[in-house]
């Protein structure tokens, strides 16, 4: 079906505001009398707090309040499992944990005050490695984690937060029936989401005693619920005001500093702003979980996968509080099965406590880790079987009707077309252009996110339409997509559809941003609301009896009767796992044999997609995810020694620069079968996960060195080459 506005490459309408500094982010919110909050953080990974002396800080001119855990209610916070104190109470569990918080007239005074707080600690034995943490006799982080609200019941060791299991068939029987069995272990690193706007928020208490919140948070309604719990206030007493968000990538769903800002606001009678420094983000944000993953796969003589067992240990750090899923684990774990039909499957993932930074959600949580392991493992097996890695994949790809590890039967499976498209576009079967050049392929697939969104559309007296929504735009351009949907439905030019950002007072609920759901849930809510408005407009036009009457005439006619033409829709997408989107990627790399340096010469990414609503935004998601995947593959790493992170600036924590980005070929296999508006699917998390294994596989193809732990650095490849030389 041809569309007028849907499918058009429309550039970002909020772009000028953002690049000119006009856009007001949470950290820019200024209120009369506003003061600044700053937190003092633990320098030790595990210690008892013996004494905190705040007297000097309190005496400093310009300091309005200094709070420690003793001044706060004994509340634990979290997103699903509530195990984290607002401020450390008697004990700190990681370097960077907040032990006191200050409010002062300006941020300099607040910093100065922090330096005047005297804390006496007594070291406790600490544990950092997840493998060590679940051994007998390991230091215990939480005495009774089962007692925490939201804690899963299964707990094989006190340092296990949660266990997530996926099971098909009988894995042991599967191994017995296999001709050969392969086992490999992989490790991935601690990695920050890399959003440029750090966590920031303002909390004020207004004349009516309501708590007004401006926060860099992607789920305003969930935030309201979580704050209601953390602050022990009825939800109606809290209003979350939406602001633009400077990147989220999964990391902005918690209460973070907001409860502290609230308590400071209470203590000072002033609105309080807290903005994390990037150093604080890198020591106490909620980064991607590092993982240790063992894959064991049994295959038949003809290269078919019979059974697979996956065991993953996620190093979750000191608290489980940042994980939102009911499992308190990482859903991406299910991708241990890859894009393959495996009749006998057992995946087990353990999130483990340790004295490190607590980890949270990051773009496609758990998947980049799992897909790196799974797709590297596939190539290693193919090599052992003397099969072309593409051919080995072909023989095992999912097909229509196949069962996923999560129990869903798949429909519209385009795994094989997607793979073939990527192979063709990357010239897979042609000779490589020279020595030390290699190609590697990797695949993944991703479900289309579900959730619920409220939208309201209103016809204005000038004939334009306003879309009211409380679903934040985290920087993806989602609001533009929603305007396109409304404009399409109503037959309006784009600039006659305005968006109005609602607050949590305007609606009852919204699942917010996450899990590749926004175009789906927000898009459908906006679509149906616009459809309803269209019916009203048509009815109104019929009443007027003038079919050609303008929208403004219709609106004004209704207004004369005291009516506003307005329609709302609450769209609640139920879990549906039938349609997913496949991704196949091919990296072509050159390895410099003298230095081990890896240059990605070319990258090909093929996606099985639904209707594309905005090709610029769509491509932006593909490229953004890919670049994040590239950083994860080659350079990003929060280096940690005994819980102490040393890469605490964006100079030392290496996000890719534009110089590091390879030329890209994108192949889109459009198929209008998605559940989104106009049959859109999801794209936000499709391009990130297969990048690292594609590069690892290409490096192995180029020089024979198999990298089992990310990132793939020059030194690892170099010493790998030396090892090979020595052995031959």
């Amino acid at each position, binding site marked *: 079906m041809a569309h007028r506005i849907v499918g058009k490459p429309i550039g970002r309408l909020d772009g000028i505001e953002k690049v000119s500094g006009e856009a007001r982010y949470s950290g820019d919110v200024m209120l009369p009398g506003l003061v600044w909050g700053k937190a003092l953080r633990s320098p030790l990974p595990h210690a008892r707090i013996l004494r905190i002396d705040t007297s000097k800080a309190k005496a400093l001119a310009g300091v309005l309040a200094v709070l420690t855990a003793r001044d706060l209610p004994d509340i634990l916070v979290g997103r699903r499992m509530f195990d984290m104190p607002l401020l450390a109470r008697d004990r700190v569990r990681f370097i960077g944990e907040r032990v006191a918080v200050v409010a002062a007239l300006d941020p300099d005074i607040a910093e100065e005050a922090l330096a005047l707080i005297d804390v006496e600690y007594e070291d406790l034995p600490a544990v950092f490695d997840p493998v060590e943490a679940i051994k007998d006799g390991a230091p215990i982080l939480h005495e009774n984690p089962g007692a925490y609200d939201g804690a899963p019941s299964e707990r094989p060791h006190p340092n296990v937060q949660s266990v997530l299991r996926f099971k098909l068939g009988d894995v042991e029987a599967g191994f017995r029936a296999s001709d050969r069995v392969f086992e490999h272990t992989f490790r991935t690193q601690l990695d920050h989401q890399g959003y440029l706007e750090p966590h920031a928020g303002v909390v004020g208490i207004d004349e009516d005693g309501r708590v007004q919140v401006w926060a860099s948070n992607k789920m305003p309604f969930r935030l309201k619920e979580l704050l209601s719990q953390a602050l022990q206030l009825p939800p109606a007493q809290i209003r979350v005001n939406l602001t633009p968000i400077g990147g989220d990538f999964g990391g902005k769903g918690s209460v973070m500093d907001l409860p502290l800002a609230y308590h400071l606001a209470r203590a000072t009678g002033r609105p309080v702003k807290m903005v994390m420094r990037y*150093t604080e983000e890198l020591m106490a944000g909620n980064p991607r979980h590092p993982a240790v993953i063992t894959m064991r796969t049994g295959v038949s003589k003809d290269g078919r996968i019979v059974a697979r067992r996956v065991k993953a240990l996620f190093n979750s750090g000191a608290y489980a509080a940042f994980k939102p899923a009911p499992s308190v684990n990482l859903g991406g774990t299910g991708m241990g099965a890859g894009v393959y039909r495996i009749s006998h499957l057992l995946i087990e993932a353990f999130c483990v406590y340790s004295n490190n930074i607590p980890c949270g959600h990051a773009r496609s949580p758990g998947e980049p880790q799992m897909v790196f392991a799974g797709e590297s493992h596939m190539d290693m097996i193919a090599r052992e079987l003397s099969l072309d890695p593409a051919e080995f994949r072909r023989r095992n790809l999912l097909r229509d009707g196949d069962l996923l590890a999560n129990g869903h039967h798949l429909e519209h499976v385009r795994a094989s077309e997607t793979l073939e498209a990527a192979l063709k576009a990357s010239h897979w079967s042609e000779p490589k252009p020279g020595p030390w050049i290699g190609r590697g392929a990797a695949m993944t697939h991703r479900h289309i996110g579900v959730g619920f969104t409220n939208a309201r559309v209103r016809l204005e007296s000038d004939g334009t339409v306003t879309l009211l929504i409380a679903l934040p735009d985290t920087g993806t351009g989602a609001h533009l997509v929603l305007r396109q949907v409304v404009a399409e439905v109503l037959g309006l030019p784009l600039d006659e559809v305005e968006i109005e950002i609602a607050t949590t007072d305007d609606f009852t609920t919204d699942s917010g941003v996450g899990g590749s759901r926004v175009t789906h849930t927000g898009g459908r809510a906006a679509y149906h609301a616009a459809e309803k408005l269209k019916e009203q407009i048509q009815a109104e036009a019929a009443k007027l009896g003038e079919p050609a009457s303008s929208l403004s005439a219709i609106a004004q006619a209704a207004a004369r009767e005291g009516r506003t033409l307005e329609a709302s829709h609450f769209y609640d997408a139920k879990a549906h796992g039938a349609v997913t989107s496949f991704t196949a990627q091919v990296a072509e790399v050159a390895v410099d044999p*003298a*230095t081990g340096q890896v240059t990605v010469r070319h990258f090909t990414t093929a996606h099985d997609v639904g209707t594309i609503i905005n090709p610029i935004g769509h491509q932006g998601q593909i490229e953004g995810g890919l670049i994040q995947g590239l950083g994860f593959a080659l350079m990003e790493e929060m280096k940690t020694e005994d819980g102490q992170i040393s890469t*605490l600036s964006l100079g030392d924590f290496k996000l890719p*620069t*534009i110089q590091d980005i390879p030329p890209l070929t994108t192949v889109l296999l459009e198929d209008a079968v998605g559940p989104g508006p106009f049959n859109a699917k999801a794209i936000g998390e499709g391009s990130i996960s297969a990048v690292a294994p594609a590069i690892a596989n290409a490096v192995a193809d180029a020089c024979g060195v198999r990298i089992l732990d990310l990132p793939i*650095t020059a030194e690892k490849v170099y010493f790998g080459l030396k090892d090979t030389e020595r052995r031959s």
Partner: protein
Amino acid sequence: MIRLPPFTYLAPGTVDAAARLMAEHGRDAMLVAGGTDLYPNMKRRQFEPKVLVGLRGIRELRGVRGSASGWTIGAATTLSAVTAHPGIARDFPALATAAGLVSSPQLQNMGTIGGNVCVDTRCNYYNQSYEWRKAIGFCMKKDGDICLVAPGSSRCWAVSSSDTAPVLWALGARVRLIGAGGERTVPMPALYRDDGIEYLAKRPDEVVADILLPPAEGWRSAYLKLRRRGSFDFPVLGVAVAARMDGDIVRDARIVLGAVASLPRPAERAAAALVGQRVTRELIARVADLAAGPAKPLDNTDFTHPYRKKMTRVFVARALAAVAGLQNGSAASEEVA
């Protein structure tokens, strides 16, 4: 965001006035040109000057001038201007390359060559926030009295991290210094000291006014830089090679390594082994071995130090091949990022 502490900013109109202000305020004062190194360091409380003497308003410090006796580069000339200067690019390609590889284009537009040769030495234990250093225990470079990289050492081993310094050294540059008590011109090596803390041999009141380059006259040069990313990152190893060639015979040569010690480190024996020789692959291999010999990287920058040591050899060989016009077998790019 980390905020700058309060300070007084003085903006003299001449170099003499700047030098006098420096002398007047003594240890409380520091010079600032582009501020791209100094301000971040102040934010992290690595520098705590009360007074900054700004060089941006001094016109005589800016610009590249050529003459029969060579080139003069004003110390406050930006790195972008140095890279873009056609005379520099023609006569001293290594310098144009090095200036163009400093951090990122944005910082090259702000950063100056004078600031680049005076840039602070670096170390993983020092280029950290105040709180981090406090938590880990301060080291002797700032606020403490031990070395965390080499415990037991009585000196600091922070690493010279300028891209242009090794190149200027290899090119035989001199610097004109103007102090409160007069001016002097010294060769590049005399600007540096082998100490991570007192890495400059000049007096604090002395302003680097000009960098003087001799005529190119048959000299060829190349610079290679090792870093993690294609932009933004400080050198983890820099190799500057300059050679005066007579046909394919080397008449004179200098090899200077950056980021392997607290000052640019000349590889004199290696350079001497080139003189009078025809450049062949065998010679390059021998010279590269000699050059890598003195490099003793410590574990205080990005990349592991055994790797940095190995790379010295590779990079020297590649830089030599580039200068000699030999195409190296693989990836002899100007920069290996």
